């Protein structure tokens, strides 16, 4: 099942600043909602998102319940070398999701 959608350019020139878009499937239950009977719906969110580029961390985010469901996070990075970008989301209830994108830098 597809947990996440990554958008990274397949090719880039060395030194080019590229845009990365990420979308992950997650309810991001805030922990502030109640059922019709008044019981609190427990918090269930992604709290951390990390991106590494050929093993080196290039972006890290801490998410609060205020991030909308199915978190969309877009950022930039400098295309340095060809290789692998790895994206990892972790959160409550042992949630983890990983996606990998490859990039060719010439």
């Amino acid at each position, binding site marked *: *099942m597809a947990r996440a*959608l990554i958008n990274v350019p397949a090719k880039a020139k060395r030194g080019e600043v590229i845009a990365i*878009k990420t979308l*992950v499937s997650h*309810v*991001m239950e805030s922990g502030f909602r109640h059922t019709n009977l008044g019981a609190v719906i427990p918090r269930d969110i992604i709290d951390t998102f990390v991106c590494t580029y050929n093993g080196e961390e290039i972006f890290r985010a801490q998410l609060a319940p205020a991030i909308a469901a*199915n978190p*969309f996070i877009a950022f930039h990075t400098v295309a340095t070398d060809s290789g692998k970008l790895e994206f990892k989301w972790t959160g409550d209830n042992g949630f983890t999701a990983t996606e990998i994108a490859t990039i060719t830098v010439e």
Partner: protein
Amino acid sequence: MTLVRLASAFALLSLTTAELAHAEIPLAERRSGYADMAPETKAMQDDDAANPGMLAVLDGEALWNAKAGTAAKSCADCHGDARSAMKGVAARYPAFEPAQNRPINLDQRINLCRTERQQAPAFPYESRNMLALSAYVGRQSRGEKIAPPDDARLRPHLDAGRERYNVRIGQLNLACNHCHDDNWGKKLAGNVIPQAHPNGYPLYRLEWQSLGSLQRRLRNCMIGMRAEPYAYGALEYVELELYLMWRARGMTIETPAVRP
């Protein structure tokens, strides 16, 4: 448009006796709910990398290719590549199902294939799998024009759907046409009233924070009118869907759309 004017417009409408004989939106004046959205929401729909509906489409693609049921068949085993096989399909549903002697919608068609061809259990309505497959199939009709089948057997059901669209329901005692034919484009509690075309389903509704079907949206409306909604899968919904698709004939499909 203030609510005072809207309320007096409603008051006038309640005096009308010929409730069923009213003006439908002229074909040239029809507009998709997309046109009523803020630029940011439009951008969310337009960008496949930002549209949460695309997550469901990806899930649906996996389901399309997965073997299921005791028959151990996938959708692909019979239908092949969905990109060609399913192109235009969502545009011509609901369709008449002779075995059941009634129209069925796309979700029901998918479940017929599941139970009869794959010998797999039907997906529950509004389940993640149901929405994913429905989004994937619907996505193959994105850009296509809505084309309800020219089938005489559908006629009585189309009429029933039209009648239901025009009948007052609930404690608010309003019919669909009062908002969506007579007052579209005006504001209700801060939101623009859309013409209510079904051209983007299943869609990601910001209010739901998830993907949902047309039936879910119709239920929302009925609950909004403080009326008892029909059970999921009821013929009433399919007839209403049939009328809505006929009303939106020729409009472009946007599945998976995003709406506020």
